[in-house]
């Protein structure tokens, strides 16, 4: 019998990321070539990285030295955060310690989890995006 923690620990690769609006509209959040890695470490830390395909390199060599436009393009096609994780009922809680998106630092990101075969599906609580309410559904396979 696998415990819920054992079912999660390890690295997961993104298979799909959909935004589902309240009116039923279902749109992929990223285009072809998107990638994602989600690590649930055995020591209680987690990290998530999500990137679109076809991202544009910066002109310079400094990750912290992009122009405003380079950074806007990079952040509209990439997201990353990390912190601790725990299971609470049907949900995984990510206690965000660091995030490139500053607003998430100190927040709890709740992800409702279900398993379908060898896939793990994480669903977010409702959020507003571009004036519309809906949720995201991210499907992962073991890396």
């Amino acid at each position: 019998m696998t415990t819920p923690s054992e079912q999660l620990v390890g690295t997961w690769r993104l298979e799909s990321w959909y935004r589902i609006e309240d009116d039923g509209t279902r749109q992929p959040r990223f285009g072809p070539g998107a990638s994602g890695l989600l690590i649930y470490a055995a020591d209680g830390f987690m990290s998530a990285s999500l990137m679109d395909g076809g991202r544009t390199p910066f002109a310079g060599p400094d990750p912290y030295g992009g122009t405003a436009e380079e950074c806007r393009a990079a952040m509209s096609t990439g997201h990353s955060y990390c912190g601790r994780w725990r299971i609470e009922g049907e949900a995984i809680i990510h206690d965000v310690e660091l995030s490139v998106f500053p607003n998430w630092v100190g927040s709890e990101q709740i992800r409702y989890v279900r398993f379908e075969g060898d896939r793990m599906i994480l669903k977010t609580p409702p959020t507003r995006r571009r004036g519309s309410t809906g949720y995201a559904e991210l499907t992962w396979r073991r890396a």
Partner: protein
Amino acid sequence: MAATPETFIGTWRLVAWVITDGEGKTTEPMGPAPWGLLTYAADGYMFAMLGAEPSTRTRFSGSDPLGGSAEEAQRAMSTCHAYCGRWIIDGDSLVHTVEMALFPNMVGTQQVRHFRFEGDRVVLKTPPMTRKGASGIAELTWRRA
């Protein structure tokens, strides 16, 4: 001390980050209190996020992580970077094969970090690189989180 995967597996917290240039001048690119987490997972994957102390960073006006303005994104990325991929030990170095990175240029590269131990800390030394406008060899000191 011979390093095995078990020496590194787990999560590490950044203690110090110093860049030394060719003339010996030192810079702390994120100030005296940088923040960072580095995870070496048992399955061979790794993740690193390094930046400025979170309370010094400016929040976006909106709630969409992907929806910031150019100015918001530049402030965010000049104070935070993350990458992930696979890791191996090669002699007295850790090799990070980068699969994903906020900085697109790093994707597909191998980041080699020479390691040494100082008590319960590990110091990772980089080849010459530029970070936050400072160029040179960086030493990053980590302790177990």
